[in-house]
């Protein structure tokens, strides 16, 4: 099963809407609550990152009985120093993002903790593409 959603930059009123929709799909597919939580926490952090830091982007989910692969891609401006960005507590977030309860430099580390395979392709003035793979040990229903 493949689903794809656009994510608008800067609009915090709808940040989390895609994650909410995907959560509904995963529950319908009878994934375990523990799997749903891991996937959705990582996805929500990534969605907030697109809203907070990018020019906008999209979220693609591929779900089968073995795994869930979610690709979050934006159109820039990219992460200049990925190693630094992965450091817990380091952040470039604006005051507006902090007012929303984010921007404490925990997003990428939360994503890393919840994914089985995490690939990040980025660079200064480049798009950022985050690919998150979640393995489903017990398996979900075929989509």
């Amino acid at each position, binding site marked *: 099963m493949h689903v794809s959603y656009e994510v608008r930059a800067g609009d*915090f*009123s709808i*940040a*989390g809407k895609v*994650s*909410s929709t995907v*959560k509904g799909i995963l529950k319908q597919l009878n994934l375990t*609550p523990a799997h749903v*939580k891991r996937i*959705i*926490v990582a996805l*929500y*952090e990534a969605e*907030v990152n697109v809203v907070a830091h990018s020019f906008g982007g999209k979220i693609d989910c591929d779900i089968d009985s073995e795994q869930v692969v979610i690709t979050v891609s934006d159109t820039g401006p990219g992460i200049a120093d990925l190693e630094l960005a992965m450091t817990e507590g380091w952040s470039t977030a604006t005051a507006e993002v902090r*007012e*929303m*309860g*984010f921007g*404490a430099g*925990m*997003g990428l580390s*939360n994503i890393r*903790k919840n994914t089985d395979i995490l690939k990040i392709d980025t660079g200064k003035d480049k798009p950022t593409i985050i690919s998150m793979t979640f393995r489903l040990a017990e398996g979900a229903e075929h989509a």
Partner: protein
Amino acid sequence: MKLSDVVQIVNGTVLCGQENLEREVRLGFASDLMSDVLTLLADDILLITGLSNNQAIRTAEMSDILQILFVRNKRPTKTMLDLAHEHGITVITTPYSMFRSSGLLFKNGLDPVY
């Protein structure tokens, strides 16, 4: 403790989810930092926060948290309450501070997550 006990202890007002006051809650977590909330693995958590915006409700939804206590009389917007209602989240507000609310609830038997 029951959610009705929480309401009584913090002199709270229920803004949404009045029908869930018999629900039991075991743990409390106080934070304005949503990424911190998203690290929690336990269920049965009362989120105590001063952050009154859509992301507080969204974070509760993503974390399977079914009850939020807003401190210092923070008034959630109608959009927030609609979102909470849609996801079965009970919303309570209290005039007390986060420190006082947490202290009273802890003293009355609500356990910490950590």
